[in-house]
């Protein structure tokens, strides 16, 4: 089954909570995914990303909106008629079937002839590098191998769209990196669309062609990884993407997007991502601070805590006015040391202060 694009139009889903009130889990998700694209749904737990995936898979009915595969409306079809491959967070391998039968299950349900099914299963297992484990039960495999079986089972049916629900979250750090590369490679080889749910920003940045950041069921930003990383659309996205320094400051000057914010002796030149009025919030990544001398955005302070990370250290710097900043500094940074750090104005993102 070939297609050109998957379209989600205003897909929404609400639940009734135990008290009977309506809870919006997913609100008006509208996006078009062309063939071959790898899209990551990124957000903290409970942000609605898995709800969105389940809606696409047909495991949850939509409350409103529609889903289209080119001209075919699919949100009205049951899961088994959509033909998408799905990889579940805990793999959901059938415990009573061997690896071969697990992978072949989708083909069997489609009535593919035995000989041909056999060939396709063998090829899928080659693709995930599991040749030689065909006759084992899932319980006899390691977590990484189970993950590969789940992947093979989802792609052997040659789905137009592969859906993945945090497939790497149960693996250890090393295996996660390996499988990440593996997933990327398989996606390229198959040339189909993949929608990948994760709460791990590194995973999303490294895997995806495009990232959809979600929060409280609402899409916050849809953009390529570089843009999400460098130009978060709002404070929530910035916070989630690792802008750990969030400073509430007063707006001292504003001309276009160039603004100056400050308070209590702290003065920062920055870039406003949204129009700001009197009060604003500046978001800065720890890794954007520099120790080298600079002429703008100089901050004096004293190192209050050092977290050694190997190549560098994550340090807490207390400024003269008492503000605590998180910064990455050379590993030589020592506790109690007086430091002067700076940050380039284009790396100080200024957002309007929350209306509170």
């Amino acid at each position: 089954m070939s297609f050109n694009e998957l379209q989600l139009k205003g897909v929404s889903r609400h639940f009734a909570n135990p008290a009977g009130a309506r809870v919006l889990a997913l609100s008006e998700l509208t996006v078009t995914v062309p063939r071959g694209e790898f899209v990551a749904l990124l957000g903290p737990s409970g942000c609605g990303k898995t709800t969105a995936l389940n809606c696409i898979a047909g495991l949850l009915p939509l409350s409103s909106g529609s889903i289209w595969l080119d001209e075919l409306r699919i949100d009205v079809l049951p899961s088994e008629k959509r033909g998408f491959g799905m990889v579940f967070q805990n793999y959901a391998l059938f415990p009573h079937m061997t690896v071969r039968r697990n992978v072949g299950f989708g083909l069997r349900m489609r009535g593919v002839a035995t000989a041909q099914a056999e060939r396709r299963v063998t090829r899928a297992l080659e693709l995930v590098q599991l040749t030689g484990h065909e006759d084992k039960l899932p319980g006899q495999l390691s977590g990484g191998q189970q993950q590969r079986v789940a992947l093979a089972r989802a792609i052997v049916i040659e789905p137009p769209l592969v859906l993945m629900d945090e497939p790497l979250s149960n693996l250890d750090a090393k295996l996660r990196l390996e499988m990440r590369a593996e997933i990327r490679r398989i996606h390229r080889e198959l040339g189909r669309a993949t929608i990948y749910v994760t709460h791990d920003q590194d995973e999303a940045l490294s895997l995806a062609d495009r990232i959809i950041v979600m929060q409280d069921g609402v899409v916050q930003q849809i953009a390529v990884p570089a843009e999400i990383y460098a130009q978060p659309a709002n404070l929530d996205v910035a916070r989630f993407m690792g802008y750990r320094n969030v400073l509430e400051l007063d707006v001292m000057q504003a001309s276009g997007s160039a603004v100056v914010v400050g308070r209590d002796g702290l003065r920062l030149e920055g870039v406003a991502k949204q129009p700001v009025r009197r009060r604003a919030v500046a978001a800065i990544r720890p890794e954007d601070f520099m120790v080298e001398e600079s002429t703008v955005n100089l901050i004096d302070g004293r190192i209050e805590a050092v977290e050694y990370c190997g190549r560098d250290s994550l340090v807490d710097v207390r400024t003269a006015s008492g503000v605590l900043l998180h910064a990455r500094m050379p590993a030589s940074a020592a506790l109690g040391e007086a430091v002067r750090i700076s940050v380039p104005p284009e790396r100080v993102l200024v957002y309007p202060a929350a209306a509170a």
Partner: protein
Amino acid sequence: MGTFILIVPAVIFMLLFFIYPFLYGLVLSFQPAQGDWLANYAKFFADSHLWRTLNTTFNLALPVTIINVALALPIAFRMRHKSRYQRWVTTILVVPITLGTVLIAEGMLAYLGPKGWLSQALQFVHLYDGPIRLTHNYWGVLLSLVISGFPFAFLLILSYITGIDPVLERAAATLGASPWNRFRHIYLPLLAPGLAITFCLAFVQAFSVFPSAVLVGAPAGSTRVISLAAYEAAFEQYDYPMASAVAMIMGFAQLAVVVAVLALRRGFYRGPVAGGKG
């Protein structure tokens, strides 16, 4: 040593209330009032009035067990998802377990007897004017055993079904399996060992039928079950050795079925019923 002390109370309990009475009965059964040591068993299998009770009991217990398991499986399957009405339906279905056979028998006599409400209602609307015989015969006992045995089978199967990770079914659905295929290829194989256990327990329960065979059955004829034969030997003829022999035969008949079913169970997958590393 520590663990040994922990099992002592259980061992003493088993010895006192199960092993000892069992061995006592076994030995007693080989000490007939007259004749050699096997005389009681010889008498049982020679007297058609006695050995027929074995057939009668099987004829009741096997269909009852099959009906109970076959009825409980689809209903429990429908109840596998937590829902608002799941609790209510489960409660209603399980109530008969608390009633006891005697109360059920009384209810059946009132509703289903020749002058019962069902019969009167049917005659009133002229749906069926003939006599309705649902009590004091084979059907009465069968019905009573289904009423009292069903909740038991239902609860057991429900607990086995809810133990199966529902994400497996969802995975099967995304792979193109229709609802029937999901039941057939995912639930049924994973349930099979549990169904075998349920079958065994339901069978043993039905096989030892006693009160309802008297109250709603025909204890002199079509529902003269084996426990009645043991009762008569013990408390009407005061032949305890004979009663013990009948009880032993009853026990071994149950054991034979249980062993056969569990042997079948060895052919099924019996591993974990979750889909991942958990």
